[in-house]
């Protein structure tokens, strides 16, 4: 351990713990080698944490929010036009507003690094573009209803949930695959670390397709009718499905039953969203309710009642919660935190400690179909009946990006290398569990102590004893008479295509036996008498 290492202030942020029992005072082992090994591991861990904490100064960017100057001023009253005037030209230009009135309402999807935008109009208009440059890569009209679209591992491929099937297109809009198992999908989600495309829709089936191998990894029947909402937990790749009976179910491809079932609304779930860290889930129901869950321990944090049923929810990287109701978009800050003061409200109603909306927006005479915060940007993309609009939401984007993970400025080469790297690091679908940390650990039911040879012997003895106790009961064996005979086995042994004199004799013998058996059987049955003679046979016998 280097002596010059000192505990950094921010080190707590980088500490890790697996389970609760790691940091409790541990008993010193007698095994010297093990002790040395544990010490080495601990030192390594501490060093790594310290080094990680030391890298924080490399992240100088901080997210800033819109701030009110006095109590009377409310940030949610600031309009987009005012913000556009206030911000720099570059940011203002990013406030994209595509007016596509013909094929709406539009579903939007930003790629993981935020460079590309995929839009899919309900009436079949699909377009993939580099939205910052205004560079349209692919545009096609499939002439059928499109319900959802998503980019796959990068902006080179995208999947579109169309009227009946789901299709995969490449960056130029060429149709690559028609996923015929994914029927009537309404929601698409791509799990980037597992290369899985998950679809759910009218049929009530959740299907996982591995896009790297093309296999259908698993098909799960929800038994809860059409899926009304769907999202993924970015932390553990669990799919959260919303159903019409107000429940939210959590699915892993390796379990046929839902891992968890939550009752989140009295009516159908309209939308589900989970924050980046996988701590919180926000659901909205048709019963005009909005619920914020802590999904680490499945407790409800907040319940909010909305004036009208919400159609969409989105959570930004910084934890802003955007809710759309018809033409309205309302955004809360700190809504994911515990505490009454963080509970989202629409108005203060004369009380000071209310979490009033951070921002709100209205697109009059319109209906927002779909929302997504743009990665690494202070923008909220909305797809609505008349096209696509980006709203400027200060403080929505993650200020510091990890280029090893997602690089918003990646070049073609980097993209290609990243693709290869992610393919190499692809996780099997089996590894999706509610708590990904259990992978590599010891089974829950196993002994928490290493079994000695004595223990193992006891176990094996016990099993032997069991076998011994049941010894007096004879094993049931089917009473089947073997059909084998000496002649048969001889014939079988003889090479098939070699016909010699002996074989011919054996065959004749067998034929004879067969005939006598048949005859005996017939006599027994009473078809013929014992002294029956077939005249025809006798007559023909001379020729044989």
């Amino acid at each position, binding site marked *: 351990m280097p002596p010059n290492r000192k505990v950094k202030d921010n080190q707590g942020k980088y500490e890790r713990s697996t389970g609760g029992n790691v940091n409790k005072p541990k008993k010193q082992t007698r095994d010297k080698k093990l002790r040395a090994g544990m010490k080495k591991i601990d030192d390594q861990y501490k060093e790594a944490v310290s080094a990680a904490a030391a890298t924080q100064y490399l992240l100088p960017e901080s997210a800033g929010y819109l701030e009110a100057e006095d109590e009377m001023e409310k940030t949610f009253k600031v309009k987009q036009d005012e913000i556009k005037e206030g911000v720099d030209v570059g940011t203002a230009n990013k406030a994209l507003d595509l007016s596509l009135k013909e094929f709406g309402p539009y579903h939007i999807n930003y790629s993981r690094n935020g460079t590309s935008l995929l839009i899919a109009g309900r009436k079949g208009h699909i377009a993939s573009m580099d939205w910052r440059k205004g560079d349209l890569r692919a545009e096609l009209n499939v002439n059928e209803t499109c319900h959802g679209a998503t980019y796959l591992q990068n902006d080179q491929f995208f999947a579109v949930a169309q009227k009946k099937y789901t299709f995969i297109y490449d960056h130029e809009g060429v149709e690559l695959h028609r996923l015929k198992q994914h029927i009537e999908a309404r929601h698409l989600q791509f799990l980037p670390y597992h290369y899985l495309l998950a679809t759910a829709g009218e049929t009530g089936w959740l299907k996982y397709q591995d896009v790297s191998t093309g296999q259908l990894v698993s098909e799960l029947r929800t038994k809860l009718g059409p899926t009304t909402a769907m999202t993924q937990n970015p932390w553990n790749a669990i799919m959260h499905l919303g159903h019409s009976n107000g429940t939210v179910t959590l699915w892993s491809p390796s379990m046929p039953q839902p891992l968890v079932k939550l009752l989140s609304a009295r009516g159908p779930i309209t939308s589900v969203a989970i924050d980046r860290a996988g701590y919180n889930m926000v659901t909205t129901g048709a019963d005009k309710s909005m619920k914020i869950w802590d999904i680490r321990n499945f407790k409800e944090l907040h319940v909010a009642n909305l004036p009208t049923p919400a159609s969409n929810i989105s959570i930004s990287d910084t934890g802003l919660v955007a809710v759309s109701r018809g033409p309205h978009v309302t955004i809360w800050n700190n809504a994911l935190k515990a505490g009454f003061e963080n509970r989202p409200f629409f108005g203060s109603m004369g009380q000071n400690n209310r979490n009033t909306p951070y921002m709100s927006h209205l697109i009059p005479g319109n209906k927002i179909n779909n929302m997504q915060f743009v990665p690494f940007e202070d923008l909220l993309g909305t797809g609505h009946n008349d096209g696509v609009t980006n709203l400027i939401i200060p403080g929505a984007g993650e200020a510091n990006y990890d280029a090893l993970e997602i690089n918003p400025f990646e070049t073609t080469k980097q993209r290609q290398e990243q693709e290869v790297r992610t393919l190499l690091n692809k996780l099997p679908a089996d590894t999706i569990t509610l708590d990904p940390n259990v992978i590599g650990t010891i089974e829950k039911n*196993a002994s928490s102590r290493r079994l000695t040879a004595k223990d193992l012997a006891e176990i094996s003895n016990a099993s032997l004893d069991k076998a011994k106790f049941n010894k007096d009961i004879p094993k049931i064996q089917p009473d089947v008479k073997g059909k084998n005979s000496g002649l048969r086995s001889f014939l079988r042994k003889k090479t098939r295509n070699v016909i010699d004199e002996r074989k011919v004799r054996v065959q004749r013998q067998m034929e004879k036996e067969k005939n006598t058996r048949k005859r005996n059987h017939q006599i027994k049955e009473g078809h013929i008498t014992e002294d029956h003679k077939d005249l025809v046979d006798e007559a023909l016998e001379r020729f044989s």
Partner: protein
Amino acid sequence: MAKKKSRSRSKVAKRAQNALEIAEKELAGNESGSDERLDYEDDNGHVVNLLRKVQGGDDEGSDEESFEDEELDSDEALGSDDDFDVLNSKMSQTIRDRKKGKKSLSSEDEGGYTSIDEADLVPLSQVWDMDEKDTNEDSDGDRPETKLQLKGSDDEDLSAEESSESSSADEGDDDEDPFDEISEDEEDVELNTITNDLLKQTENKSYKKLDNFGSGKDSEFSLPTGSGTKKLNLADLMSVVDDKDAAANARLIQKDTSALSVPLPQRIQERYNRKAAYELSKQEIERWQDVVQQNRRAEHLSFPMNPPTEHNHASTFTRSSEEPKTKLQEKVDSVLKESNLVEDQKNSTFEELATAKMSPEEMKKRTAEVRLMRELMFREERKAKRLKKIKSKAYRRIKKKEMLKNREMAGLSDESDDDHEAARARERMTLKHRANSKWSKDMIKHGMANDQATREEIEEMLRQGERLKEKMLDHNSEHEDEAGLSDIEREGVEQESPEKRTVGKTGVMDMAFMQNAAAREREANSELIAELRSIEGDQIEEEESHSQLLPEDNQNIQINKGRRIYIPGSSSAKQASGQNKADGVEDGQIVEKYDEPLSGEDEAQVKENSKSSNPWLDGSDGEEDVKVFRSSKVSVVDKDSSKLVKSAKKIEKASDRQKRKSGSKGRQDDDLLLDLDKTNRLQIVDPYAGSDGEDTGFMFKQQSSIAEAFAGDEVVDQFEDEKKRVAIDEDDKEEDVTLPGWGAWAGTGANPRKKRKFVKKIKGVASQDKRKDKNLKNVIINEKVNKKNLKYQSSAVPFPFESREQYERSLRMPLGQEWTSRASHQKMIKPRILTKPSQVISPLKAPFK
């Protein structure tokens, strides 16, 4: 033992008797040679000669001289060399045999001094033995006489005994004499037995004779002498053996010759051997333990283990290796070496140069000194050239004469040297100095040793050999060593003595310039002597001697003030050098010119040095100095320090205290803040509690109507039902497998017994009490185990870890670069063993060699 003793006594008696006889005969024969004879006997009493003498008793006058010669010859020619003893003995034996034959013949012919009765009857082959027997018989007859004699004259006996002891021809000497008993007990014995005994005896005799023969001295090479005095045993032989181990191992010879224990069975012996070998190998291996352990504990090992550090060569034109590889490189190398471009630059760095350590003043002085030396040398050279050019024959003649004279005086003639060398070479070539040369051996063998000339030559050779060996054997070395310094000194003294000077008034040597030259030479000599003395007197460092050689370097000693040199010769040497200075006209003056001011400067320098370099001395006086050098952390305030310092210290202390206080306060504030935060955060708000109380906002007036609208769906009830159902389904179940009437008696008189319950317990997924969602509202958690996930989990605690906690602690830190900093990621994934491709990994080297 008693028997032995008596036997030996009889022997002694016989010998004495024999000696007596011989002595009588001798006396009768010649009186003059008796002295000499005794001498001879002392050396090695050859009875051969004695017998001859006896023989020639009649004509002794004529034979006397030749006999003497012969005696001398054999002695001198073969010398006292050990090699010759053997040769001598052999030769003498052959001679003796011959003589014996003669003697027996003579005795037959004349019947001179013994009377033998049956001698004629005995066959010739047994003549010698018979002869012996006769003598024995005679001696037996004479025994009473000898005894008497023994008692009477001791001194004579002793001398006689000595002589007889060493004599090989002493026929009376025998251990077992069957004739003694036979003759005494019974006179008439069968001849057969006697002959048999005699035959036996002959065998013994011949052996004994050989045994008894030998020279007077005991040595490992000579045969053991007299049987009575000393008996050779194995221990004596062992004393000669050089190999100590062998001597220690010779168990039989050692005193404690107890019976050897029975050797262990081979199997057990081998086991012991293995055990010992194991111990040895264990020790050997234990020496490796440290290295092996170190390598085992090391986090990373990179092979090759200790690679030679490769320095980056600055340019591509410098070679990476020292040895030239190509021919061109070799050529360049050789050229560089010739021009001294390579080595000098590399070998002496600036720091290593002596001049680098000098102060500028010293440097100046040094250069001046060197310049002076060069000047002097140049002058000398010029002078020599001039002298060489002189063509005057007279001058040359005088010069030559002078040189010769000088040489003579030095005691080395020009010719003698060469002669000596030549003689030595000749000697070595001819190998004349070797006494046991082939030639001399031949001479002795063929009896030419008797020849006067030959013998002289051999003697000369021996002497020559001795002379040559003299130096090697280091006889005169002490004398020669002494002749070193003192001689020259004495010479100098002698030369200076006035008598010598006045001896030769005329001649070249008395001319002024010659005298001057001589004086100069003497001076040089004395100087050299002084130097040598000083070196001899103590181990002076080279520098010192150098400094004495160079008179200006005296201040070197001055610099080191506290250093005194106690050398007995040094003071005189200094004086001598001082004198030298005074004598040398130009040298001294030049030196003295810049000697004094420099020394003054040096003193000043020394003072400065002492001031700056002695931190203990100047600590008290300079206050400001102390301040400067004191570190802010460690400051010493004591009684001696001034008021200013003290007060400053006080102020500092006070401020420190305040700071500390404020710091703690700040910390406390921080704590408070933290506490507040904690309370804030720990407030747990029941989400429904708030909604119940304050939900009645004007915007949500229709809430109840909404509830009504969805009332028909009964979603909540359904969910609750489901939850219950799931809980029951997944709970442990009990199944009653009792068959009614099974094992029970029916009918009249059957007493209704207690119902035996056959309950089968089916373990469910999770018992109702332990469900995770037990206390959670609106949540159903699936308790079933995801079997597909199990393969990513360990079924038991893996080996090195002892508990789940330890194992999971080891998994805490992900290795991926996405989760850690770059450095720690690379450190964590660094393999334990790193090898360089194409590098040979040599086996572990023993570090303890």
